[in-house]
């Protein structure tokens, strides 16, 4: 028999601001967009965040902004839940891509077009040893453990947006099965990095031209965001009733999403629906990416967190659905505590 899983705390940071209250009116907020920096591709840049106050300087020096963003939001979820005294056995599941390359060094190499041995020489002379630690996918989780003393299990899942959903599902399933008491799950995505724009531009998936709402886009618009949820056995601010995920070949994506929706608790009248996918869909729901852009690993946890806030504000239910840019489908249902 599954135990109920509560959402005890939420940490959020994005282009719309810092913290839960800055995000509560997201569906009515004007999007924050930078069209110049990676033109012709608009992005939603991260709001200015008080990293200096939330991350000790000694630790912050070992990170770049991607890890700082995630570490900041994870800490917020812990303090939002008032769970700072329960971190020692807290289980962590992070969805992460890669960290940050030395874009200046990359630019030098691209300009020089060196041969093999010369390239290796430029890398040996130019790479900073500590930057490697700022790049490794699992070092976001490592930084969260070090800064916030989260000392239970630690897992990092890779796989763009579906990794964010699977991270949440894993934490939810473990608590539901009684094998974890407290699970901190989420992700961080920093869009405003050239190597990240490059990754998501592969295959022509990015919208080019002035910002437009999802319905008028020729592709996806990236946005920076981090979202962490602290899940546990207590009632919390809302109940995470269900998380379902699936993946397979692209041809079956719609049918798999339909099956996931059919397996979820039935929709209640007045339910808030949120579409967390990077591309528009005929399916119903508020468009997460209209407000935030596509926030990749963070998108699904962000949508579930916003659903929890809607339930806290009186909605009878929040239903979140997503199809990934390349692979993966996910559904979550949030209900009153």
């Amino acid at each position: 028999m599954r135990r109920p899983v509560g959402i005890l705390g939420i940490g959020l940071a994005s282009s719309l601001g810092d913290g839960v209250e800055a995000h509560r009116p997201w569906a009515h907020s004007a999007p924050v967009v930078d069209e110049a920096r990676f033109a012709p591709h608009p992005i939603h840049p991260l709001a200015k965040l008080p990293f200096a106050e939330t991350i000790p300087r000694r630790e912050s020096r070992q990170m770049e902004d991607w890890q700082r963003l995630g570490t900041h939001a994870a800490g917020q979820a812990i303090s939002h839940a008032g769970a700072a005294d329960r971190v020692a056995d807290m289980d962590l599941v992070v969805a992460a891509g890669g960290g940050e390359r030395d874009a200046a060094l990359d630019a030098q190499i691209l300009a020089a077009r060196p041969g093999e041995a010369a390239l290796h020489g430029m890398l040996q002379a130019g790479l900073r040893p500590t930057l490697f630690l700022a790049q490794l996918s699992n070092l976001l989780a490592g930084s969260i453990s070090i800064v916030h003393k989260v000392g239970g299990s630690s897992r990092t899942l890779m796989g763009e947006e579906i990794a964010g959903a699977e991270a949440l599902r894993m934490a939810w399933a473990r608590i539901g099965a009684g094998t974890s008491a407290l699970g901190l799950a989420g992700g961080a995505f920093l869009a405003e990095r050239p190597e990240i724009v490059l990754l998501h531009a592969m295959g022509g998936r990015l919208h080019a031209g002035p910002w437009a709402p999802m319905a008028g886009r020729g592709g996806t618009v990236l946005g920076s965001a981090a979202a962490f949820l602290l899940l546990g056995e207590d009632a919390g601010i809302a109940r995470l009733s269900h998380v379902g995920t699936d993946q397979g070949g692209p041809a079956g994506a719609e049918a798999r999403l339909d099956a996931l929706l059919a397996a979820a608790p039935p929709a209640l009248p007045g339910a808030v629906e949120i579409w967390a996918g990077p591309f528009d869909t005929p399916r119903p729901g508020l468009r997460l990416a209209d407000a935030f852009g596509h926030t990749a690993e963070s998108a699904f946890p962000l949508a579930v967190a916003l659903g929890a806030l809607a339930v806290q504000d009186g909605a009878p239910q929040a239903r979140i659905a997503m199809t990934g840019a390349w692979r993966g489908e996910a559904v979550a249902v949030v209900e009153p505590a």
Partner: protein
Amino acid sequence: MSQRIAVTGIGLVTALGWGAEANWAAMRAGRSGVRPITRFDTEGLKTRFAACVDLPEDRPGAPLSVAARSRRLGEAAIAEALAQSGLAAPFPGPLCIGLPPVEIEWPQRLALGAADYPGMIAAVASRPDLAGEFHFGATAAHIAERFGTRGVPQVVTTACASGSSAIQMAVEAIRRGECGAVIAAGAEASLQPETLIRFSLLQALSTRNDAPEAASRPFTLSRDGFVMADGAGALILESEDHARGRGAAILGWVLGAGEAADTFHRTRSTPDGSAIIRAMERAVADAGLAPGDIGYVNAHGTSTPENDRMEAMACRALFGEAPPPVSSTKSMIGHTLSAAGAIEAAVCLLALRDQVLPPTINGDDPDPELGLDTVPASRPHRFRVALSNSFGFGGQNVSVVLGRAEPD
């Protein structure tokens, strides 16, 4: 008493060869798979050797990417394990796999012909093939689709503990009743120039360029760093009921797993070793056993000064004055990073089957302060339970307990 998880298939690829039996024979013979790197130019590099698994598709100046090689190695190990298990695609459960983070590499970047990032970003728009190779979820998605596994492939990176994390996640999924069978695997091919240079800059690698086969020398006085390695390991795991219900041959058991995150430092263990001790304790407890039940430890044993000292200390703390034999098969196959946990669990199962311990080779100057029997040569050993340790860069520590299949 936790539910037992049966192992019904084992697959291995390392620098010692293709296939579990070929690897096991080479390990029993104490062979080294470490050799000079030939698939890229190593002139001027501080470390010029590794435990390489080269492929026919590697061309001079244009080796396969990390993503492509880890996919090939992972598919080979899984195909072997699956064939042994008697199961076939579509596989009736999910894939849990430890993989390295990947990205577009210099040969592909330079081949775009662009002089800067905006140029590259424009050039990749017409290249969906790059998305299918370099997205973080791509390698596992291709593997999952080849074997027809169910659900989202769980692609885990806990650095050098990834393979063990994959086994642990598989065990949890079976125990939760989500599935009766899981492919648990790890595949690694991070050996490309930039990664090699990055590890060199962290002073993590051995620089014994004059004698590569002697470079991985865990638990010795002259150990000077780890040796990068390619490889993959795969296990087919099933609930006991699922395996017995279809009459599968049970090769051994995954009895338990435990993990603990270190909150101390990105690259160093808590000085008292408490996090790695906790991972081992939790694994033993999860198996419903006591430390005295462990008959052999396959060490993380990376051959770095720091790891081997901390791991030896942790073993003495857990097992007391008479720890069981502790060997590091990384002395022969190098450090396969994301795959190490899966490969070394497979090695433990083969050792349990044959009642033979694999050696720690190159142990000609043992560090006397460590106080361990590190098995300098392969030898017969009566034991029922083995512990496999994996301690990740970034503080993620996982131990797995493996059990011997009872003779029928």
